[in-house]
């Protein structure tokens, strides 16, 4: 469905945001994970045809979208990380405007989508008065107007409260049943329960692309738990990758990423997805 072939995006000679990235994606929820500055947003913008690759190709159903951007735009829903709404425009008018821009002829679809994101009661309210969560939902409704085959969502839960996050996450999971939903985030919990595939980026490069189960599997045997005193903690910090440290009375409970026993008394632990990703990142860094 969507294939990226050796995609590179450079800004001048100094900055390469995305470097030689190749990826093949099919319908389902795909989590694009990486730290800030890893190149996720640039990659998303290239897929959304907002910018073109410096080299390489992005193929959508075999068509190079740099040459024929409208091939994907007609089947694309895009929700950027930061977006706003026009002043003095109701949610309904905002949707009507984008429906017209996208050539959506079914007026009932706007109503259905506002119901889907639970904003139908607020349709006539000025969109500029919406809360952050409501704005995000309006944004996703806008992205779904043309019933897209590919939905690109950049940092979807930034600034949302826990309830809104959960609601938004479930909505994206449902959409992923029959569409390609590409979610960019640096918050692992956003995608760990809904993504069928995780693409991990670091410094513009794709360092892994696999199912969450496979990534967890690889991390097993590399995540340890230990309890040490303050002096031991300082020593361990210098030689291992401490994932978590929690003070418990006089001692400190640790979670550590390390390929072998990091200290006497340490015990193998079942990694969380976040820990697995961190362990993977450290392993890549050390290999490099």
């Amino acid at each position, binding site marked *: 469905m969507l294939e990226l072939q050796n995609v590179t995006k450079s800004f001048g000679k100094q900055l390469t945001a995305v470097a030689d990235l190749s990826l093949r994606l099919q319908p389902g929820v795909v989590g694009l994970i990486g730290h800030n500055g890893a190149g996720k947003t640039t990659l998303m*913008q290239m897929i*959304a*045809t*907002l910018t073109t690759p410096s080299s390489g190709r992005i193929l959508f159903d075999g068509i190079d979208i740099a040459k024929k*951007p*409208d091939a994907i*735009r*007609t089947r*694309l829903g*895009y929700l*950027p990380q*930061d*977006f*706003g*709404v*026009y*002043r*003095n*425009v109701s949610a309904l*008018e905002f949707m*009507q*405007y*984008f*429906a*017209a*821009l*996208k*050539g*959506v*002829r079914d*007026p009932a679809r706007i109503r259905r989508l506002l119901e889907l994101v639970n904003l139908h009661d607020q349709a006539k309210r000025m969109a*500029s*008065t919406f809360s952050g969560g409501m704005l995000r939902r309006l*944004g996703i409704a*806008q992205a779904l107007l043309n019933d897209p085959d590919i939905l690109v969502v950049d940092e979807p839960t930034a600034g949302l409260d826990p309830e809104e996050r959960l609601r938004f996450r479930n909505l994206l999971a449902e959409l992923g049943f029959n569409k390609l939903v590409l979610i960019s985030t640096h918050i692992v919990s956003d995608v760990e329960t809904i993504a069928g595939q995780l693409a991990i980026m670091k410094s513009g490069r794709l360092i892994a692309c696999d199912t969450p189960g496979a990534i967890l599997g690889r991390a097993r045997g590399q995540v340890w738990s230990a309890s040490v005193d303050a002096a031991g903690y300082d020593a361990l910090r210098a030689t291992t990758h401490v994932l978590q440290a929690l003070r418990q009375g006089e001692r400190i409970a640790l979670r550590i990423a390390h390929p072998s026993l990091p200290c006497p008394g340490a015990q193998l632990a079942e990694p969380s997805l976040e820990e697995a990703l961190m362990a993977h990142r450290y392993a890549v860094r050390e290999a490099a």
Partner: protein
Amino acid sequence: MISEVIRTLALLEARVRLRRTSTLVTLLAVMALSWLIIPDPAGGQTLMSVHGARVRYTSSMLALGSTAQASLLFALGGFYLLRGRMAEDQRAGLGGVIGASMLGGRFFVLGRWCGGVLYLLALIGAAMATVLVCHLVRGEGPVEPLVYLSAYVIVLGPMALFTASCAVLWDSWAPLMGKRGDLLYFIVWVGQMAMLPAVTEGPVATTIPVDFTGMSAVVSALSAHVDIHHMSLGIADFDPALAPLTLPASVWRADIVAVRALSAVLALLPLWPALYLFHRFSPDRVKPGRTRARRSPLALLNGWLRPLARLTQPLFALATRLPGIAGQALADVALTLSTTSSAIALLLAAQVLAMVLPAQMLAPLVLACVAVWGVLVSDLPARDGDAGCAMLGAAVPGGAARRYWRQLAAAVTLGLMFTGVAALRLTVHAPLRALALLSGLFALAAFASMLGRLSGSARTFLVLFLLGLYVGVQVHTVAMADVVGFHGTATLASVSAWSLMGIAAAWGGHLWKR
């Protein structure tokens, strides 16, 4: 300590402005204009003539002539260049940081004001340097730096202080922020222009303290040496057969200098309320929201007229049915009208008036419609960016490239909606006027789109549009100044020229950031 804080703020402010590419462009434009306003007498034109005789290009003449021209431009353009820094702070998320800092609001405002004055002085310095170079090329006499300096200080000094004070006040008080503030300042500027007849037509030319542009001072100074009733200041033809006149090196009388000193003090008055009204980025005062909207007369009017926005529903519906750019442009028309309900009311009124008014009243109606339309469409090209919808709009079919053309098409369509009925009636009575109206609308829409794309802001076009409108109404005889056929002096040549300029502007905007 206090002076150190203000000095730091002012220098920072000046540095921020001077490091921008737009400042470089502005400087180049200032230098080009400063050069162009001093024509080469060998070409049959001069900067100043009296009874058809040209005045020699001495230091005093060039200093007076150039300051008079520069003052008008800087008083208007300078304000629009200066204002908007606090809105920029807000957009960048720095407003809250500044508001929560220990820095006193009054020091902040003073710092901003000083920075603004420094910035204007830098531009004025560039203008003066250009005139000095021009003097070396075209001058008729030695370059006298003190003559230049005194003229620039006396004429442009109070102007720079007043312009910076207004810019700070307009930025500090929420009701003056935004487009209505832009319009209000334009009225203030026009008001100063309106004082000139009192100076030139009275028995004795006097310097007016509240004329911050300094035009009255220039005219008053000249009145002692030449017949100001038969004087032309600006690019003008002259009779080469007549002997050139020479201005004395010093034209400034003590009374004029005293009045200008008073003007400089009065120029600080707008700063005083700014110190007390400064919003300090308080969310309930500057954040766009219901509370704030109720304070704005325009927002209040739009709120009252909000039911009229329902009339745009058929436009939205039609937009979805039209394919490609036509549907998208119509969607932009519908969005523009639904965001400004007052424009719908004015549009309806324009239709009724265009049908019932006698033919001879159509021209003023068209002019009023064009004025409303120009203000309305000025922010169309920058709207997506301002609202944070730029990326949403670029990911739809056609992308960012088509957005430019659809917004241009929407601007033209809105122009036709406002003036269409009048244009149809004009076609019967004065077809050339109707043609001028159409070409003028297209050219103005193209310039709005191009300038909006180049500057990323509505202000550049708005300033030039209002200035052009003012000049267009004042100038009765020049065909090229009759952009929309208001005076009926447009010719086929001027109509063609404006059409070609419109095409060039539209294409230039398209190529920019392509």
